[in-house]
């Protein structure tokens, strides 16, 4: 038999063996399919950064038509659930018990100030513990206030003239739904899990069970060993990606504005990078416990926190921003969010793909240097 045929036979043998093992190992299935579904459902249904139905206490010390119109504006907003309290004291108690997130307080001189001096104040207290939620709630309150100002002016036969009116247009996500950016970003997490965590653990398992030693003394080349191991996990990861995309588009109705094929191509590239990371980790860690820990700390957590998936990279301290440049997920998340929400924006896709390709090259070079068919290297 010639060497090429033998090589192909070895490769096919490795791929078949690895695929059979995946199919028989419940934990591979768990990481590849159960975990993505759990994450998708959690993020799709469970997690939202948008504030809706914020419980708000209302204290009106002297009700009249003016206060009624202002409170009416709050009631019309979908963002708030109002609860009336007789005194600021009672409202504060509810606030302390976290029954309400904020208080709108109209003092007994509200109408008098409004009519006589045109300089009434609306007291608002928000719970600042969750700063993000507090800021977003503030924004909603300001929105309600502006709407009410217009109403008020019109009811008195005047035109409200603000010197400058802001006319915001939010591109790509007009409804500003957080699900539309969380769900696509999640694909990066899922592929990192499959590529890096699962792969590093299965290679470590071969070391632990002694099967690696037996493999190494066969005529298999190191390249065949690596490719044979990675192909099945590549397929598995792409399967995870397809599952996530399908869920995102059909279940959560996230728009996919870019081309599906471009998305697949970029994902394939990222999948290779993730597999490369798994491979390099497995060179360092020869038991599953350590491999799992390293994979979580080095790949999963950064993909979660430092990729721009949730947190804005430009707002991080400079040192941390520097670190994000070596996180592959950062580039993939940018591609994902663009392809889903904005469309085929080639400069973004190409530049990020170029970085990913460079990373792949480096990872493969490291793996190639570090992997030997020897036990003591």
């Amino acid at each position, binding site marked *: 038999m010639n060497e090429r045929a033998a090589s192909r036979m070895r490769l096919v043998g490795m791929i078949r063996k690895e695929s059979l093992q995946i199919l028989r190992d419940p934990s591979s299935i768990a990481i590849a399919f159960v975990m993505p579904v759990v994450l998708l459902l959690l993020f799709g249904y469970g997690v939202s950064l948008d504030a809706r139905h914020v419980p708000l206490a209302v204290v009106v010390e002297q009700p009249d038509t003016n206060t009624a119109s202002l409170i009416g504006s709050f009631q019309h907003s979908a963002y708030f659930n109002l609860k009336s309290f007789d005194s600021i004291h009672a409202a504060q108690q509810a606030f302390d018990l976290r029954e309400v997130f904020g208080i709108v307080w109209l003092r007994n001189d509200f109408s008098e100030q409004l009519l006589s001096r045109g300089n009434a104040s609306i007291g608002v207290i928000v719970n600042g513990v969750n700063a993000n939620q507090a800021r977003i709630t503030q924004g909603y309150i300001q929105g309600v206030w502006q709407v009410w100002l217009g109403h008020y002016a019109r009811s008195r036969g005047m035109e409200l003239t603000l010197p400058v009116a802001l006319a915001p247009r939010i591109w790509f996500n007009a409804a500003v739904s957080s699900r539309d950016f969380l769900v696509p970003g999640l694909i990066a997490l899922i592929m990192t899990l499959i590529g890096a965590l699962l792969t590093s653990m299965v290679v470590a398992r071969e070391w632990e069970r002694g099967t690696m030693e037996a493999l190494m003394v066969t005529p298999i080349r190191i390249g065949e060993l690596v490719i044979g191991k990675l192909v099945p996990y590549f397929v598995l990861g792409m399967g995870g990606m397809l599952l996530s995309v399908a869920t995102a588009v059909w279940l959560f109705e996230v728009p996919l504005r870019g081309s599906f094929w471009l998305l697949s191509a970029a994902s394939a590239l990222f999948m290779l990078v993730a597999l490369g990371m798994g491979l390099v980790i497995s060179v360092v860690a020869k038991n599953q416990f350590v491999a799992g820990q390293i994979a979580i700390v080095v790949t999963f957590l950064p993909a979660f926190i430092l990729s721009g998936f949730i947190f804005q990279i430009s707002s991080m301290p400079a040192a*941390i921003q520097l670190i994000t440049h070596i996180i592959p997920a950062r580039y993939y998340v940018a591609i994902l969010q663009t392809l889903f929400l904005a469309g085929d924006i080639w400069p973004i896709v190409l530049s990020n793909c170029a970085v990913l390709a460079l990373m792949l090259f480096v990872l493969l070079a490291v793996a190639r240097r570090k992997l030997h068919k020897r036990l003591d290297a």
Partner: protein
Amino acid sequence: MNTLRRIFALAVKELLAILRDKKSRFVLIGPPIIQLIVFGYAATFDLNNIPVAVYNEDSGAASRVLVARLVGSPHFDLVGHIERDAQIAPLIDNKDVLMVLHLGPRFSADLKRGKTASAQLIIDGRNSNTALLALGYLRAIVTDFNIDWARRHGKPGPPATLQIRPWYNANLLSRWFVVPGIVGLLTLVVTTIVTGLSVAREREAGTFDQLLVTPLRPVDILIGKSIPGILIGLIEGSFIITMVVFWFEVPLRGSLGALYIGMFLFLLSAVGIGLMISSLAVTQQQGILGTFLFLVPAVILSGFATPISNMPEAVQYLTLINPMRYFMVIVRGVFLEGDSYVLLFDQYWPMAIIAFVTLSLAGWLFRRRMN
């Protein structure tokens, strides 16, 4: 007496087994510190240096004043001026800027004539949360500009103004929100991993049989195995609390005692869950996976990063069985709101119930597993 000595010996052995192993030591020390730093610095929703471009077609002074206010804000970073409509899309598309402020040619003229001048704002909505926050910041700038303009030109301002005061976190620093939460996050992770793997590790090493033939009863073994988890959790928790207070300078306003009661109950329930996983897992790999499958939803549904009140109602009910949910309230309550025992009572008792149920279940599973 003898029983106590046996349990004590078992707990000492468990602790030694964890601490003498390089890998386990790494797991206990490495990731928590890395996570504390990464979360503490990177996990922030506050926006700084948002890249923004200005498209100013107006030549009047007013528009320059508004732009100057934008440049002066620490939240924004002026990347450049553009001159044509066609330049907007590429800038936003390529993520060079997060938003473009567009002032039309009649901006100053409209203002002068008392007409409302329009300021157009185009925001990249790919990250909706960032978009909303950035919009909020800009709105505040415009509102301030309006009030100033009205005052300077002797025009009446709005008849009623908002006086918003955020309590507990006046500057709305999201670090104050995230960092105390890490106390809960990391103690949960460490405690569940330590206890979740403890039985599986002995099963794989074959020491479990050796343990079972000693006079130790299953209950003794369970107690002996929970003590190290709780101890390590308490130590690690205390370390993180110290870091939160002195390194990240988050105020600690409430009673430490109230915090520690909460932490103890929280660790008890975490140990209960860890031991349940432990009794079910045959191999360490299953143990790792089991802990992972528990930890991810537990963290996401705890209110650690996103408020529970934003979740769908069904999911909100689900969070009631998550001990971390209660501890998140306690730790933030004590740190920022200055809560004490009475206010936190409603968080204590559900955790006590969860701890009781999970520990009993773990005991039951453990005994059943052996038959």
